[in-house]
């Protein structure tokens, strides 16, 4: 299955993936209009330390602890993509407790949020991958 893979060797720490992700989350056509004067809360986030930086988002595990642990059944797997039903989620944060990548985050409106490979929005290539200027985030099949 195609997944988002990250190679920190090429990550510039420009944080554009976060902005493209946040933009993809809105229904706006124009990024400026969508993101001006707001604090974004993207589903992908850059970890930085010294010279090293890399983006972290849901790995869409084959053995998803978050799905197994979800107390409401809001987290499900369909075609390998781990999806969150934000109406079902009551924000108990058990998934945050269990996700070994720290890839699920709070969203401010109670429910949690996570990368869904842009299946709901930009079909095809996830926005973070499209937006990465240096090929540090790719979307491909890997063994």
């Amino acid at each position, binding site marked *: 299955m195609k997944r988002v893979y990250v190679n920190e060797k090429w990550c510039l720490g420009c944080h554009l993936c976060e902005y493209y992700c946040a933009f993809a989350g809105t229904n706006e056509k124009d990024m400026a209009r969508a993101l001006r004067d707001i604090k974004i809360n993207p589903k992908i986030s850059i*970890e930085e330390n010294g010279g090293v930086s890399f983006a972290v988002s849901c790995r869409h595990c084959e053995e998803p602890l978050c799905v197994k*642990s979800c107390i*409401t*059944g809001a987290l499900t797997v369909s075609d390998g993509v781990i999806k969150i039903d934000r*109406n079902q989620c009551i924000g108990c944060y058990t998934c*945050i407790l269990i996700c*070994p990548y*720290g890839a699920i985050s*709070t969203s401010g409106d109670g429910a949690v949020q996570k990368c869904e490979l842009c299946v709901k929005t930009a079909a095809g290539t996830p926005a973070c991958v499209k937006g990465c200027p240096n090929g540090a985030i790719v979307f491909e099949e890997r*063994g």
Partner: protein
Amino acid sequence: MKGLNGAFSNNNKANPAESVIASGGSPVKYVIIGNSAAAIGAVEGIRQIDRQGEITVITNEPHHTYSRPLISYLLLGKVTEENMRYRGDGFYTENNCTLMSGAAVAEIDAGKKQVVLADGARVPYDKLLVATGSSAFVPTFEGLDTVESRHTFMSLDDARGLSKALDKSKRVLIIGAGLIGLKCAEGILERVSHVTVLDLAPRILSSILDEDGARLVQSHLEGKSMEFKLSCNIKCFEKNTAVLEDGERIAFDLLVLAVGVRPNTALLKGIAEIGRGVVINEKSETTAADIYAAGDCTQTLDASSGQSRIMALLPNAYMQGECAGINMAGGGKGFNKAIPMNAIGFFGLHIITAGNYNGDVHTVKGDGNCKRLYYSDNRLNGYILIGNVEKAGIYTSLIRERTPLDTVDFALICEKPGLMAFTQEDRMLKLGGVAR
């Protein structure tokens, strides 16, 4: 995508062909007693391996499978009974299993390999899973029977009953400042005139919080005008008044008993080894042949402490159940990463805890947040996060994986949980999916 989450040792898929047919040659008969997380996990586990076998789910509750922890949210009005459903309406048909709801199990005839129902009916099994969960422990207080409105808070029916009894004029006394008591308190606070929570212990949530943490949460709850009576012992009840050892009298209209739970192990008495709960190994097998157990009724190895104990938590229940299901269907799977862990919140204040609190402690406090990491012998034993809980799973994985702390940047990870603290090779594996 194996990684930290490869919580399941070795191959978890067996050759379907061999597992489909029981020794007899007919499809395998799976019987599951219980209809909650562990039971559902078992169904999904079985179906990973065996599409044909007959699955029968027996529950004494008259409901579609639902998520027990949600009953407090039901009272809170955050969920409806509709979306309390743990799995979709089509679940049983999609997984082609028979649900016998409202059917109480009288006993297990291990010799005949049959489950005997209260009405005398017998359900034969090849593989049996006992996922009977636990029930509220009701202590024997003097005069308790004189209390008009008594409630426990474990099941949907409990919640319904309580909900009916609620109104703005009621004063509620909750015995037990544990997870259940407090979630119940949160659930009803807005719907009654006053809530008092009483506990023998000197602090709230004593099972998962240290004193500082408890105080922090308590003041938060008191801020919501919840009243606490700690370190006090009930002498007796006189109708709607609780009389304490020190003579204080607390009048109430409604009593909720939330002092604790007891695993439902009765069915296996004399059949399998029972400690405080049904003893299972990492394959969710009991000591009795072809009988598995999972969830709140069991006790198993705590990966964080190495001791066998009851860990009545939904995630563990599901994973034990799934593990049981896979093994019942002939797959080979071990689940040995159960640890105590809790994610809970009260009025927007979030608490995540895991593991045990032995060893040295690293503390970070400030603006309503509190972080405590407990470690010894180069391992993280447990942690408490109150307030900011982002990326807590990174800590959890350190505990579940028993990751040697000298293989990560512990100073960094203490400051903020993240993959940055791991080696570049680890990250290549985690984020690149490639070992380099």
